[in-house]
């Protein structure tokens, strides 16, 4: 086997390894799950009380960041009480589905 073959094999296995680490969310299920989120995140400029700041825009946000954020609320690394409660009610699959849907969105002009 020549060097080129080895290179190809390495590339293919690297691709496979990366592929398995990728999120496997189901966006259409995510679309159903985000119904709850819209109560706050669906109102442009909606602001929390204590502390007082606008809830973030989450449509179009990056997939793995959303997964990380929800898991951080779950683990206590992020502390906003409403989001901690929401995240605790979600399974790992729910979180991946939500992230798949949100990251697929583009702003409505």
């Amino acid at each position, binding site marked *: 086997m020549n060097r080129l073959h080895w290179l190809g094999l390495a590339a293919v296995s690297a691709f496979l390894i990366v592929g398995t680490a990728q999120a496997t969310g189901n966006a259409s299920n995510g679309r159903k799950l985000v119904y709850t989120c*819209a109560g706050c995140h669906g109102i*442009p400029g909606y602001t929390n009380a204590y502390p007082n700041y606008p809830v*973030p825009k989450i449509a179009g946000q990056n997939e793995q*960041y959303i997964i990380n954020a929800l898991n951080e609320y779950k683990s206590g*690394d992020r502390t906003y009480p409403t989001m901690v409660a929401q995240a605790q009610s979600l399974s790992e699959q729910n979180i991946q589905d939500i992230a798949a849907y949100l990251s697929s969105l583009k702003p409505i002009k």
Partner: protein
Amino acid sequence: MKRALILLYCTASLVLASTPLLASGSIAAGKTKATTCFACHGTDGNAVDPQYPRLAGQYNEYLQQALHEYKDGRRNNPIMKGMVATLSDQDIEDLAAYFSSLPTKLDTLKGHIQGD
């Protein structure tokens, strides 16, 4: 006396916790301070690597809140903890002003949920 003191502390902490974040930062100053952020969050504020959030067009006061939370430990993230350690309140206002002013790929969920 003791009760009065407790009441005073409670009021004081409420006032502190609710200090309003003002959108008074300088976009130009923020731009020069933001160079460190670009490596992960993208030169246009739209991170390419999906593990990092897009900042472009996010709400100004939300970005300030996030940076303050990284700084005081309410958000525990090893990378961002190091990044914000040296930021002043003014730096935070300027950075938030800059990133919130950029063209966005973000949106609220309005129009994106079932039934809309």
